[in-house]
C-alpha cells in the first residue's frame, strides 16, 4: 500500500534574478496535515503556485497520487483532487454564496448536475456556518467568511486528495478561526485528504499539524514535528536572519 500522495522532485523556479524556489524535493503522506512555515519571502507561496499549476516550474516534476502534474493544465488539477485557496480570500463576487459553493460542480470535467449536488452544497454551507448567507452575493462577505467560502468550495471538489491553504487565518476574526480549523479537520477526515497549511500562527500549526516543513531562501531547511524543527539551528537562523 502506497501511503505517499505527493512527490516533488528537484523543483525550481526563477523570477528574473531571484531564485524563488531552488531544487526542492519532498514526499507528503496521505491524510496528514502539514504546516508549511518560513520567514517572508522564503518561497512558500511560490511553492503553492507551482504545485497548483499557476506557475510553470523551470525544472523538476510534481506527482500527485501517481499522476504527473507538470504537464497538466491548471484547471484540470481540481478534477484530480488538488484544491488550493488564495492568500487574499477570493470569491466570485457577483454570484451568490450558494452559487459560489456549487461552482466546482460546474467546472469542466464534472458530470454531476447542479441540481443533484444541491444537498451537498448545503452540507458544505452548514459545515462552514454560512447557511444563512446562501442567497447573499459573495462580494458582501467579510474576509473571514470569504475564507470559509473557499473551504466550502473545497468540500465540493470531492474527493479532495490534496488541499493547499495559503494563510487561511490572515486577518480573520478570532470567532471564525475556530470554524476554519473545524472545517480543515472535516476535509482532512472525510476524504483522507492531505493538507498543506501555510501559516505564521504557531498555535494553530501546533493544534492542527502533525508535521511541519520549514522553508528558508527557496529551500526546505527542516522537516519534522514542530518541536523538532523549533530546535533546529537552521530554522532559528533563518528566522533571525543569521548565517548558519
Amino acid at each position, binding site marked *: 500500500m502506497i501511503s505517499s500522495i505527493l512527490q516533488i522532485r528537484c523543483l525550481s523556479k526563477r*523570477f528574473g534574478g531571484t531564485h524563488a524556489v531552488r531544487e526542492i524535493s519532498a514526499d507528503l503522506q496521505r491524510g496528514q496535515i502539514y504546516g508549511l512555515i518560513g520567514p517572508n519571502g522564503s518561497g512558500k507561496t511560490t511553492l503553492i*503556485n507551482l504545485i497548483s499549476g*499557476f*506557475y510553470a516550474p523551470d525544472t523538476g516534476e510534481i506527482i500527485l497520487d501517481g499522476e504527473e502534474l507538470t504537464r497538466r493544465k491548471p484547471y484540470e488539477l481540481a478534477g484530480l483532487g488538488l484544491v488550493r485557496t488564495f492568500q487574499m480570500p477570493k470569491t466570485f*463576487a*457577483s454570484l451568490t454564496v450558494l452559487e459560489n459553493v456549487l461552482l466546482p460542480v460546474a467546472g469542466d470535467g464534472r458530470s454531476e448536475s447542479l441540481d443533484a449536488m444541491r444537498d451537498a452544497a448545503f452540507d458544505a454551507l452548514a459545515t462552514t456556518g454560512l447557511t444563512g448567507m446562501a442567497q447573499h452575493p459573495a*462580494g458582501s462577505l467579510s474576509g473571514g467568511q470569504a475564507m470559509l467560502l473557499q473551504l466550502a468550495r473545497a468540500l465540493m471538489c470531492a474527493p479532495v486528495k490534496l488541499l493547499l491553504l495559503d494563510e487561511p487565518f490572515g486577518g480573520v476574526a478570532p470567532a471564525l478561526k475556530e470554524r476554519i480549523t473545524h472545517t480543515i479537520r472535516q476535509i482532512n477526515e472525510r476524504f483522507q485528504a492531505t493538507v498543506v497549511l501555510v501559516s505564521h500562527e504557531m498555535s494553530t500549526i501546533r493544534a492542527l499539524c502533525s508535521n511541519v516543513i520549514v522553508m528558508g531562501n527557496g529551500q526546505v531547511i527542516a522537516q519534522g514535528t514542530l518541536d523538532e524543527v523549533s530546535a533546529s539551528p537552521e530554522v532559528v537562523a533563518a528566522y533571525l536572519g543569521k548565517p548558519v
Partner: protein
Amino acid sequence: MQLLLQSLTLALLNGAIYALMAMGITFIASIMRIINWSTGEFYMVGSFAHLALLTVIFPALGLTLPMAWLLSALLAMGLVFVLGMVVQRTLIAPMHRPGTQAFEYATIMTVALSVLLQNGAIMIAGPNQYSVPDYMRPILLEDLEIVLNGSRVASGLAALAIILLFYVLLYRTSLGLAFRGIAQNRLAAETAGLNLKTMDMLAFGIGTGLCAVAGALLAPVFLVHPLNGAAATMKGFEIIVIGGIGSLGGAVVAAFGLALVEGLGATFYRAELQQLYGFVFLIGFLVFRPQGLFGHRERRV
C-alpha cells in the same frame, strides 16, 4: 530614389505628429487603466478652441504676435486640460466603485462622452470645414526636389518640443515620479501616500490636454471639423498596442514605426490599403508581442 526619400521625410514628420496624437491616450491608459474613448473628441475640441482663439478672439483683442499660433495652441491645451479635469472628477472618477470593474464602467462613460461631444459639435459647428492660416511658408529642398509643408514642419517641431517637455515632466520632476509610480502599481503608490484621486484627475487633464494641443497644432494640416478626431483615436489605439501601455519611449518609437509602415506601404504598394497596413502591423504585435515594444508582461497571481 527621390520618391523613397520624399516618402521617408514625410513619414518622419508624420511620426512626430502621430506621437503627439497618441501621447494623451497612452498616458491616461497607463495611469488610470482605462481607454479614453473620447480621445478624438478632445482633439476636435482642441482644434476648435484653437480656431476660435486664432481667427476670432485674437483679432478681436487686436493681438498681433509672432508665433501667435503656438500661443493659441497652448491656450487651447490649457482650456481642455481644465475641461478634462472637470470631466474626470464629475463623470469618470465616480465610476470607480467597489465591486465594479472600473475599466468597463469608465470606458463606457468615455464612449458616451465621445458620442455627446461629436454630435454636439455637429449641432453647434454646422456643416463646414475650417482651417487656420499656415504657420510657416513651404520649405523647398531644391537639390532633392522635395517640398515640405511649413505647417507640417512647424507642428512636427512643436510636437517634438511638447513631447520633450512631457518627458522632462515625467522623468525629472517629483510629480512625474509619482505618475510613474502609479503606472507601475496603483496599490503600492496609494500605500506610499499618493492621493490617487487627485493624480487621476491631473492625469486625465494632462492626457486630454495633449490630445487637444495635437488637434490645435494640426489645424492647418488636417482641418477643423466635428469628425476630425477619428484619426487621432485610430492612431492612438494602434500606438498604444504597438508601443506598450505606460511606455513613453514605446509610444514615440511606435508612432514613427507606424508612420513608416503606412507611408511606405501605401506609397509603394496599394494606396487604398493605407490604414490596413497599420492594422496588420498592430495585429502582428497582438499575436507575437502582446505587451508591446517596451511594455512588460504582468506577473499573474
